[in-house]
């Protein structure tokens, strides 16, 4: 059986969008009663948490913090997580005493700690590459969360541009609304009804100015020019240091290190700053057809369980190749496939030939195969089965095609005849139909239906071909 694990990816089930995928990658929507692959589900982020301190962050806070953790930081040199180290600075003496390097868990109680000896001050250091905030001259902070991302040097300028363009477009929109209302050739009587001109100081724009503005359709050039940058006659030249000495490559940041901080893109090692760690999101998967949830993880970040887990592995009988057969072109070869029951009740399966349209117009060439006829029943995948007395009920199935039965498994014989001149992998396909019993809570009744599952099995290359 251990060998069969190697061939798991050789058995591909077809999703509702005809995309082949191994069973382990598929989800099953019990409302639509079809398999869904990664591309047939809509994935959104469900909960946010920090990968280092496992703190769950609510959505609004994550947005405010730009999806970054407050307490944990990333080393700008090697991208691993920084540890917070504290030293006690005595309040009386300015010089540092012998540093006590205690690793304080950076998530809990970051408040200012006052010990009898003095106050605690924090700095960040990387255990992997030994970088620390002291290397770039960042002063030790009073609290571990004070190592904030410095603002972009262009922040002010960008804010100025943003507010300018926002106003510009609002005015533009308003003018066009006005023009639409009035029409191209219509006359504007608005001015007559406008009583503001009779009120002192109410409107700063005289009607004459307003008319001029609407004719020009834009603001005064002077307003626009205030925001515009000025070009320079002398663009930057190569710095002198380029020709004088050998560049200290260890002091220059690599491209990857620069791109870690797009706002600053530090060119030199001295400009590095610790970056707040990016959060990770637990995913929520929904079926695209009916919008029901297929996968929902538990909120607790350290838990790997799921609240809702509608995966195909729990529903579809899994087909495995027991061992790769020796394939000879032109001759029928017997292939043993095991079908395992995912549930703890009896499931009946049957096999049908694949439709010709499945071969995508000859793109995927499938070898002809003779499938086991009739329907078969799989014994329940019940852990207690071994312990019970052997009250072996007769399970349905053509004896001719059954190789052996195991707990929850059935090994069947398939006959594949690879065609002459087959190059590449020998593949064959069939449709596995099984009855699916669903218990929907709302309906409170069992409903069963036959679910067809197209399967393509890849047996590998021909072992021997007659030339």
């Amino acid at each position, binding site marked *: 059986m251990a060998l069969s694990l190697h061939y798991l990816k050789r058995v591909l089930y077809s999703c509702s969008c005809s995309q082949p995928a191994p069973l382990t990658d598929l989800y099953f929507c019990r409302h639509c009663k079809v398999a869904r692959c990664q591309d047939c589900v809509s994935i959104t982020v469900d909960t946010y948490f920090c990968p280092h301190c496992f703190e769950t962050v609510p959505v609004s806070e994550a947005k405010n913090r730009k999806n970054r953790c407050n307490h944990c930081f990333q080393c700008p040199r090697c991208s691993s997580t920084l540890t917070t180290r504290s030293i006690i600075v005595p309040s009386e003496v300015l010089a540092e005493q012998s540093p006590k390097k205690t690793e304080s868990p950076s998530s809990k109680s970051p408040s200012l700690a006052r010990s009898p000896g003095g106050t605690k001050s924090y700095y960040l250091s990387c255990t992997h590459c030994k970088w620390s905030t002291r290397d770039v001259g960042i002063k030790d902070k009073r609290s571990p969360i004070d190592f904030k991302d410095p603002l972009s040097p262009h922040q002010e300028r960008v804010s100025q541009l943003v507010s300018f363009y926002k106003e510009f477009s609002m005015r533009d929109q308003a003018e066009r609304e006005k023009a639409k209302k009035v029409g191209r050739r219509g006359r504007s009587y608005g001015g007559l009804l406008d009583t503001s001109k009779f009120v002192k100081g109410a409107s700063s724009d005289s009607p004459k100015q307003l008319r001029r503005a609407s004719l020009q359709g834009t603001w005064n050039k002077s307003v626009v020019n205030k925001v515009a*940058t000025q070009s320079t006659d002398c663009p930057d030249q190569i710095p002198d240091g380029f020709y004088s000495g050998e560049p200290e490559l260890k002091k220059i940041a690599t491209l990857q290190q620069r791109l870690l901080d797009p706002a600053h893109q530090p060119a030199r090692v001295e400009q590095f700053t610790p970056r707040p760690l990016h959060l990770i999101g637990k995913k929520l998967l929904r079926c695209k057809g009916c919008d029901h949830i297929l996968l929902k993880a538990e909120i607790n970040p350290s838990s790997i369980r799921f609240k809702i887990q509608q995966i195909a592995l729990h529903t579809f009988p899994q087909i495995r190749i027991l061992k790769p057969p020796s394939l000879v072109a032109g001759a029928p070869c017997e292939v043993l496939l095991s079908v395992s029951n995912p549930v703890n009740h009896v499931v009946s399966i049957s096999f049908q030939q694949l439709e010709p349209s499945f071969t995508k117009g000859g793109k995927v060439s499938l070898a002809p195969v003779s499938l086991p006829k009739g329907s078969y029943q799989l014994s329940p995948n019940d852990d207690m089965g071994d312990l019970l007395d052997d009250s072996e009920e007769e399970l349905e199935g053509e004896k001719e095609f059954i190789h052996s039965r195991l707990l929850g498994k059935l090994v069947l014989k398939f006959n594949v005849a690879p065609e002459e001149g087959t190059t590449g992998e020998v593949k064959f396909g069939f449709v596995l139909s099984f009855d699916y019993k669903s218990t929907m809570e709302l309906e409170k009744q069992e409903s069963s239906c036959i679910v067809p599952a197209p399967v393509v099995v890849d047996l590998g290359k021909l072992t021997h071909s007659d030339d």
Partner: protein
Amino acid sequence: MSTRRLAFSHHDKGSIVIEIGRMYTKVGLSGEPAPRHVIRSRVEMKPYGALQDVWDPKYLHREELYLILSRFLQNIYLKYLMVPSKDYRVLVVEPLLSPSHFRNTLARALFNHFSVPHVAFMPSPLLGTFSLGRQTALVVDIGWLETTVIPLYEGVPIMSAWQSTSCAAKTVHNTVMECLIETGAITDTHTQEQNPAGTLGLKELIQGSLEDIIVSTCAVRSMDCDRTPPEVSFPLSQQYTLCLPGPARDACAEGLFEEGEGDLSLPSAVLESLLKCPCDCRRDLSENVLVLGGIASLPGLNYRLKQELERLAGDKNERFSAKLGALQFKFHQPPAHPSTAAWLGGSIFGTSEVAVLERAVSKEKFREMNQRLPDWTSCDPEQHEQLRPVPTRKLLPAAPSSLYKSTTKTQSAH
């Protein structure tokens, strides 16, 4: 002045601004001074495939592009942006002449797979000028495979003066690679042996580090420079160190200033573009040159470009001197790294909900148009009508400027 209450006056979340460049993708939220993430434009095609380039020419015009883009955007939404795709409109910063299939597939992926409410496509040269607060600029966008030069006058791109050349970042990489193979040497730190770089079969190793080599050690020499920079030892791996000869370091961009066969050099392309502009615009444009693109951050590039432009324009033997000889060239410094300046423009533009929605396609409209975006180059008036409700406007993706009435005049170039 009456300002009508606009239909969309709820608190605006902003737009997602994304620029899918040939090598790097910049992604972030509007209103911020820099993209939140700059990542390589490639995606791991699970469960089997290797890293797949988004702009891979093999799939660029095929149906597989949909899957590649969906997976790529999925990665961006889930790992980097971590916002629900339904809640944010998207502003895509794209090159002026982007392949239609790519645009359509991107729009399809965004609407069908991610249920984005509105998607707006804006050209990067235009957005570059937003980062300057100007409406007139000569934008030189040096990409990976090609450089495009497009003059923008009062917010309107002068399309007839569009110019393109294949002197771009790839040229620089190729020049450096050739220099290294011919004149570089690799030292094996274990055996202390030194061999010419070409012999050891380590081309791939050098290729992998080439970007870093250029960023860390190279610059663009000025025309009158007679000094040679010292050579550098660049560690390629634990075992091999590359010895980079001095001349290779500052001659890396020489390829940009050489005329190829049937291909213009970078300064020639700029001047050709100016030549095709109306003569009244030329002075304004030449005094407002904006160079975009990652390679523009090489020290000395703008200075050298200015020198070359002035030399070429003033050269009596060349075709430019008669009309462009008297021009002065001045360069702009956008408030961002040159590689993210176009993105910054998108970020600034994206804050205005009104402006973006005006130029955006909604999901319903896209469906009505048979899942095809209208190309601005299309001559089909119906397509344009479907997009814009206002009849007086010409469909040129321009800045919020009401000088459209003068469009026809400026467009008749020559």
